[in-house]
């Protein structure tokens, strides 16, 4: 979204907005001259405005995150002449949500242009006539074409403003949103078609209200699901922070191990799902330390055998805690076995070689690497090269050689990924105070929490150069519906 509220728009962006608004006005102008069905325009415009978030309070949480409610616009495009159809979106966009005026005008202008083009395409294919005659298999064609045209024009214009105002690379501005927008817009086309069909059969406002209603409810439910998902990600982070709370000297360790595990997994050529699983396994690998008495965890001197035994219980505690959490099912093996060694001398089960699950072998290397390169109470951090040499030395006895090799390769390519952490934060800080803001959340389970507090986010974190499949938070109804389809199909 163009961030017009914070800094002045670049000149190119202002030119784009003014040009699009002028084009929108030109599209709508003929409506004033010709005999227009103002009643139809008014009903649709009111309906569109009502669907704008913030106008009607829907329940406790209006679907504020959803984009323009397109089905009503497409219904207008199918039954009205292009100039009149272009007007449908204008009042709602100008009056709807509390946005700066530039953005309201922009919304009104680009929607007017998009609707006008869609209506023109539908008209060229004989849309209104087909609807009037209820010529059904054929009427699908103008409806689908109108939806596609709308989607193309609106993506193109939005992309243009992203490129000029936000300096987005063109591929991100135009290439990414388009495929995601096509499917939902085709569905909106169908809703618009049904609305138009019933409207022309004399059902009038009933059609305009009843037909889009299920779609609107779907968006509303989807918005709620997104909030729950965000809450879920925050809860996972709360689990991680609970460990930091108990053991402040390892603050940020979980996040870094998660990042390093994902790095190794990606280097080994695992698919995106597996990489996400490993990131999660790395982040949560020490979750069982919650079960270890805080005094033992915080002890700075050498541990006696009883204390050592207590600490060595943490993989099993972690395994127990995550029982029954479906999306962690695959990560649990790594949580349980990340202290096993290749020669069978590790704990808790003394597994050897290939008996150790692969995720656990990855996390073990990542864990050891981060432990060596970060400062602890009893010793300073080692340089990366020395830590890697130590890993090489133990590779084959403690660590799985392919994992060590993968980490080495990945680090020689991007040496700053696992830069040593800052000095450990003062112990005893209240847990909640360390929580990162919940705004930078990925939007699905398989969460990859953002870099922890107490350490600057490395610029080349593996999460940032490969956008995870679900990481881009959907910003419009369109993507929302797509995700919903995916939920059914998967």
């Amino acid at each position, binding site marked *: 979204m163009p961030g017009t509220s914070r800094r002045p728009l670049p000149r190119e962006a202002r030119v784009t907005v003014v040009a699009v608004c002028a084009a929108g006005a030109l599209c709508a102008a003929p409506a004033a001259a010709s005999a227009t069905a103002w009643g139809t325009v008014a009903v649709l415009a009111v309906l569109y405005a009502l669907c704008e978030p913030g106008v009607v309070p829907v329940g406790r949480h209006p679907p504020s995150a959803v984009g323009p409610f397109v089905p009503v616009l497409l219904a207008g495009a199918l039954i009205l002449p292009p100039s009149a159809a272009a007007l449908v979106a204008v009042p709602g966009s100008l009056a709807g949500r509390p946005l700066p005026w530039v953005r309201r005008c922009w919304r009104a202008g680009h929607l007017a242009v998009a609707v006008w083009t869609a209506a023109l395409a539908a008209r060229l294919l004989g849309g209104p006539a087909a609807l009037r005659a*209820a010529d*059904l*298999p054929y009427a699908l064609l103008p409806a689908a074409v109108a939806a596609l045209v709308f989607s193309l024009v609106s993506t193109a214009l939005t992309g243009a403003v992203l490129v000029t105002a936000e300096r987005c690379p063109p591929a991100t501005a135009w290439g990414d949103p388009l495929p995601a927008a096509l499917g939902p817009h085709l*569905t909106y086309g*169908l809703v618009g*078609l*049904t609305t138009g*069909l019933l409207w022309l*059969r*004399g059902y009038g406002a*009933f*059609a305009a*209200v*009843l*037909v889009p*209603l*299920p*779609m*609107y*409810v*779907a968006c509303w*439910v*989807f918005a709620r*699901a997104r909030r*729950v*998902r965000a*809450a879920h*990600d*925050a*809860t996972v982070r*709360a*689990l991680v922070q*609970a460990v930091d709370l*108990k053991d402040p000297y390892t603050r940020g360790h979980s996040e870094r191990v998660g990042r390093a595990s994902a790095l190794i997994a990606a280097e080994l050529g695992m698919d995106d799902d597996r990489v996400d699983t490993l990131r999660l396994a790395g982040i949560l690998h020490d*979750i069982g330390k*919650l*079960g270890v*008495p*805080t005094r033992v965890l915080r002890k700075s001197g050498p541990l006696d055998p009883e204390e050592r035994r207590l600490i060595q219980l943490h993989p099993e*505690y972690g395994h*127990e*805690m995550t*029982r029954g*959490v*479906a*999306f*962690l*099912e695959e990560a649990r093996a790594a949580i349980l076995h990340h202290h096993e060694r290749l020669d069978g001398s590790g704990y808790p089960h003394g597994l050897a070689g290939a008996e150790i699950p692969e995720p656990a072998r990855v996390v073990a290397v990542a864990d050891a690497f981060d432990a060596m390169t970060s400062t602890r109470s009893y010793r300073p951090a080692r340089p990366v090269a020395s830590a890697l040499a130590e890993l090489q030395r133990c590779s084959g006895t403690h660590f799985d050689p392919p994992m060590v090799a993968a980490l080495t390769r990945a680090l020689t390519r991007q040496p700053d990924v696992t830069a040593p952490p800052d000095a450990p934060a003062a112990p005893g800080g*209240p*847990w*909640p105070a360390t929580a990162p803001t*919940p705004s930078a959340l990925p939007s699905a*389970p398989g969460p990859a929490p953002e870099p922890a507090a107490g350490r600057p986010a490395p610029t080349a974190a593996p999460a940032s150069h490969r956008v995870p499949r679900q990481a881009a938070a959907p910003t419009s109804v369109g993507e*929302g*519906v797509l*995700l*919903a389809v995916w*939920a*059914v199909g*998967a």
Partner: protein
Amino acid sequence: MRKAGTAAGWALAVGVGGFVVWGVGWAAYAGVREPGAACAFGGVVLLGELLRVPPGTDREGAPLATAGGLGYALLGPTAAGVAQAVAVVAVATGAAGLMARAAGPRAGHGRHGRHARKAGPPRVEAAARRVLLVAFAAVCCQPLGGGDVLTGTAGAPRAAFLVAVLGATALWDAVLAAAVGAAVGAAGGGRPFAPGLRDGVRGLAGIGSAVCAGGVVMALAVRSAGLWAVPLVALPLLLTQASLRGHAAVRATYRQTVGALARATEVAGYTPPGHARRVSELAVAVGRELGLPARQLTLLEYAALMHDIGQLSLVDPVPGGATEPLDGERRQTIAALGGEVVRRTGAPSEVALIVERQAHPFREQPLAGRIVRAVNAYEDLTAEAAAPAGRLAAVERLRLATGYEYDPRVVEALTRVLARQSTRTWLDAGGEGKEVG
């Protein structure tokens, strides 16, 4: 709980079963009218039922199927009629049930719900309710077995009539559901009639309205444009159902993760094993007894699961994890820490408020907070005592403190819930045990 619910569901199903037999028999005897429409709408019901939202949420599980059935009933006697509408919907729902059962437990659907509860065969009770719903709508279109009240109507009046019919149908469904809930409640585990009805009517505003609108539009569009309109209207409804599915899956995942967070205190040795789960189950039962609406019950459940989370901030565990014997100030400190943590978990702010105020006297607490307070106290007091005598003593101690600490209404509701549970436990096990519910 489950046993009683199933029994009431079966009783309903047997009643409806006779009705269905009549419908199918009559339709077979009189001959099927407009077989094309029957197949198309039957297909919609079948598809919607196969993609049912997994149970566990208290809302309509298959909007597409219900809307399809209602749309078919609204076609009126010339196309459907009461008997045929009932027959088509019942046969399609039954077929979906058989297909789901034949397919067996599926490998999973989607990343969120991979191991969540399976969609399974449609529940008998939900199917029975749908048949009654469709029959009601069909009867409205053909009152007193007479002719088609829709003949001659067109345009807005026809639409208005159909909307009115479905409005009445939806209200009838809410009353029916509340009545079934109350019948189950009498046996234990359900909820009183009035709050059930309130929840039902509130539910109509959301997904219920989408179902009714879908039904009306399907009927109108088929009359206007033929059977092509069926898939045209069904697709958006399918998306509505898909969004519900997605929401249900995310909620299930969230619940599991909150459960893991709640178990953290247990693994850490701050609270006895199973404490959070027991408190949340008992608290929800008490909340239901007090007639809390569905949303409040969910908040109550989360708050009860996470109520002890503040103890994680302690360097040394409280003995036995029981906060109730501690002095008030210490308890309020732990509660405040817990509230802070809950705020960070992204749970609704009401949950944080409940956790934060859990150690306050009841007059300063929201109702859900009073429930958590009393139930937690009861759990702490009975942690050692397995015998009913210990439980009686615990309830007695709560009663003695109802002047200031605990809400008398909540304690009374807790007593009723416990009395019912102990009777059932006694009957089921032939003896006593601490594990109830």
